[in-house]
């Protein structure tokens, strides 16, 4: 037996108590999922994934708007997702009756992609809108879902020329 057994035992009790206090505090402070996958809170993954979506995705659009899908298939815009032009519409997909997408300003929306810029790929169709349309809305002639013009509307060319001269 050691000489000062009582002394050592007291010390051991103090250390044990401190360890217990540390363990209790740690369990209370550290989130329970910390360390589940690594040195971070595992629940954070599920929390990030729980965020609601804003863009419904083209599958959701195509479920209802089959007529537009058929129309798009005939033209070059078949590769475009609906929400590329129409904007985020997950709310419309959830509740089609009360949330309706606004009508687009084609003079603005089309120009974002088709306004001429030397940095764009050479084979991408581009126009200088001021010269091409004189600022009139693109859907005066082009049907955006099927952009190639089949029949020119009368009087439009004169209108563009008049606008471009201004």
């Amino acid at each position, binding site marked *: 037996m050691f000489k000062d057994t009582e002394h050592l035992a007291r010390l051991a009790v103090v250390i044990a108590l401190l360890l217990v206090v540390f363990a209790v505090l740690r369990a209370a402070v550290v989130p329970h*999922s910390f360390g*589940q996958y690594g040195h*971070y809170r595992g629940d954070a993954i599920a929390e990030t994934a729980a965020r*609601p979506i804003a*863009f419904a995705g083209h599958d959701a659009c195509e479920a209802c708007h089959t007529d537009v899908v058929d129309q798009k298939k005939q033209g070059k815009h078949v590769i475009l997702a609906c929400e590329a032009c129409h904007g985020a519409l997950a709310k419309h997909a959830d509740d089609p009756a009360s949330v309706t997408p606004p009508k687009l300003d084609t003079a603005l929306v089309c120009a974002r992609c088709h306004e001429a810029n030397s*940095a764009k790929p050479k084979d991408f169709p581009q126009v200088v809108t001021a010269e091409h349309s004189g600022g009139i809305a693109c859907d005066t002639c082009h049907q955006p879902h099927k952009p190639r013009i089949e029949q020119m509307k009368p009087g439009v060319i004169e209108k563009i020329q008049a606008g471009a001269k201004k």
Partner: protein
Amino acid sequence: MDITRRRLLVLLPAAAVAWKFVLAGTPEASPNYKLTEHWWSMLIDIPKCIGCGSCVRACAEENDVPDGFYRTWIERYHVTGWQIEKPEVESPDGGKQAFPPNQSDGKNFFVPKLCNHCVDSPCTQVCPVGATFVTPDGVVLVDKTYCLGCRYCVQACPYGCRFINPKTNTAEKCSLCYHRITKGLTTACCEVCPTGARQLADLKNPKDPIHEFLRTHNVQVLKPHMATGAKVFYNGMDGSVR
């Protein structure tokens, strides 16, 4: 109670077992989405990018990105003559409202940028509190309830992909639309990209077309010398891109 040598020998393993339970916490029930079955990345086809800014606008809307901050943005490069080391790079409003006309001399092209979701990401390594991490499916995320806003990660990212959100004062970055890809959707930027210049890819999915693309194309990553294990692959990238 006397702590004898015998009692101590019995107590120590018991304490060790108890301690393991304290460390491990309670494991979560696994959802339908299996973390270990995916390894997300993105493919960017530079010759297809038209700089329309759809991705930047979609990202801001999908993720509530404050004005003047960007989780993804588009840069326009203007390279003239032999000065490959000094390209003119501009990104007005991150390319959100498309680009104004520019010079027609030299080589001009657009480069969309976003978080590279590095495997050995410098940003997660410097986080002092474990608020940012690489998920088991290869996405670098920020735990905004844990982030202190110390900005270490903002400095550490060699690609400049992080910022401090002025509303929450926590670090923010591209989450690769984690809330979308775990539901089977593509990211907001890939969803709206009109030319297919951006493609979400799952490197663990053997049917993903990325595997053939990586084999048959000259694909690069940004700053390969930094050995970050970047997972955003660029096709047709000019040597001047930084």
